[in-house]
């Protein structure tokens, strides 16, 4: 089942009046359950592409479909609702609300959906348990390591049962053992729940796990193939 489709997407930034062509025409289709890595050198447009797929940013040209609906026609609120229900994000850093504990950070997303306190608590605990980070429940972000914070971010990303998780360089700030650990976790989520994962990364160990590898170069897809993990 198709979850994301991009048709001839271009993105041009303006850098003090100078146009920067971050994406020059991307055609891409992502289906449910993929475990896809978008790789490429720094500045090749990975983050831009991911942001457009997550409706955090608008394409300058072309069309973006999320679950077959064009986001170009949606209002800001509709896009917010879509993100809340269908997408999960894991960023490179600063994922969590600093004044909330891990548990509360996870609950916050559910709260936005209007889920009552008891159900929220049960569900948050369930997810923390599944990710094996129950002991972090009452810790605030500044009391956690980077890897722990990223795990909590994953917990938050999956708690509303989204269909797609977008992760922009999730391991960039982690040592390789911690990074591997986080990737294990995401692979497990992908396997157990058929959750779609799309990463951007130039980290070798992330690329090695890709089942589909898309390589960007100067804002264009240079390669799109089954990744080494599937080979």
């Amino acid at each position: 089942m198709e979850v994301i489709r991009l048709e001839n997407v271009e993105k041009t930034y303006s850098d003090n009046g100078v146009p920067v062509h971050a994406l020059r025409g991307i055609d891409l289709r992502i289906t449910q359950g993929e475990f896809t890595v978008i790789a490429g050198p720094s500045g090749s447009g990975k983050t831009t592409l991911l942001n457009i797929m997550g409706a955090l940013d608008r394409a300058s040209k072309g069309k973006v479909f999320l679950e077959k609906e064009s986001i170009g026609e949606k209002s800001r609120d509709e896009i917010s609702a879509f993100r809340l229900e269908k997408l999960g994000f894991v960023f490179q850093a600063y994922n969590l609300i600093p004044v909330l504990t891990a548990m509360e950070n996870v609950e916050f997303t559910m709260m936005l959906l209007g889920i009552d306190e008891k159900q929220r608590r049960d569900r948050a605990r369930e997810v923390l348990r599944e990710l094996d980070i129950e002991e972090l429940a009452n810790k605030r972000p500044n009391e956690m390591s980077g890897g722990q914070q990223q795990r909590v971010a994953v917990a938050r990303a999956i708690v509303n049962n989204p269909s797609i998780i977008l992760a922009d360089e999730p391991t960039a700030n982690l040592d390789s053992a911690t990074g591997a650990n986080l990737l294990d976790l995401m692979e497990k989520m992908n396997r157990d729940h058929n959750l779609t994962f799309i990463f951007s990364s130039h980290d070798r160990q992330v690329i090695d796990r890709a089942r589909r590898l898309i390589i960007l170069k100067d804002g264009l897809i240079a390669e799109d193939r089954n990744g080494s993990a599937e080979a």
Partner: protein
Amino acid sequence: MLHTDAPGNTRQNGRWSSIVLIVKMLLTVAWRNLLRNRRRSVIVFISIVVGITAVMFNDGLSIGMISQMLENSIGSHVSHIQIHAKGFNDNRVIQNNMATPSEVENVLRDTPGIAHWSPRVVSFGLLSSALNSSGGVIVGVDPEREQDVTTIRRSIVEGSYLTGAPREVVIARRLADKLQVGLGDKVVGMASALSGDVGSDLFRVTGIFETVSSEFDKAYMFTSIDNARSMLELEDRVLEYAVIVRDINEVEDIAASLRSKLGDEYEVLTYIDLLPILVSQVDMYQSMMYVVYLIIALAMIFGIINTMLMSVFERIQEFGVLMAIGMRVRRIFLMVLLEAGMLGVLGTAVGLLLGSGLLLLFSHIGIDFSIFSEGLTSFGVGAVIYPRLTPDTILNVLIIIPLTTVLGAVYPAVRAMRLQPVAAIRYV
């Protein structure tokens, strides 16, 4: 296992209950953000508390001062309601007298809500002692009745009040000083009598009184109504009835009732009619108070704008993440408002308590303005002002201050709302 308990199925449908949930969570976030920036929060908090205490004091002092002015005038001679023959107030001559006082007195006895009343003969005349003379007001009163209506008896500082015996006068301090008379000294009063001739009489000072109003203290002299009547050839006529009502809030109703019972031959005036300048001063003070509120509110708004902008700019990434996870911008707006609103409500609560406490304390002990006392007595206030805490002040603070803090947060909240999630997240 993870998907069996899909939140989509258990979502609350009630719009209100979900708003309550959100507000609850946002309040938690707001509170912790305030704690996170403790120093900044405390500074804003203190400025709110100090601002409130200042406006409350300003209110309390102004109201206290103006009320004292009004009450002193009412208490020393004006009373709540005066009844005269038609035209007396504009033309204070004794020809404008009430020839059938019993008619008025029957009405006064029959009208509910009246606490006390007292008949008077009021005349402007010349007062002379052996050493000096001065213009003045000679008031003939029923000593028994007058003591329930005015504060003259309580204001006696030397000698004693009128007993009703002939030729007694009690005289205001400054007038006595001007005439250079003391207890037992003679004073001659001269005034135009009913016939048009000059009536005069000799009085002896039995008491000296002192009020906080220098204007009053320069002019007034009280004697028994019979003395005054005989001097002015008034027989049993009366020039003025002074009335005190039980509840000052009913003064207009009671005056209206008296007016309709007494008819066209009389004029019934309340202290509001009799003291138009003072009453308009009350209004003036009230508008001045709003100017002070405005100034304080403006200062507060800029403080809040500054603080909340800092707070928003420090948390650009946090807002970006919130937007990325699907928080609607309206809720982000609300979040910023709640944070400022919380400070406003806390500051208001503490400021109100502190301000009310101080005002209540000083409303008992008073504040001594002796250094400005000469100026104040010419306003009829007295050297000690007792500030007052009124429900109006509390209500004003309760509404204006929290509203102000929230208003100050609107612009920062709009800035937070306008952040683009990508830009916010990229912002490192």
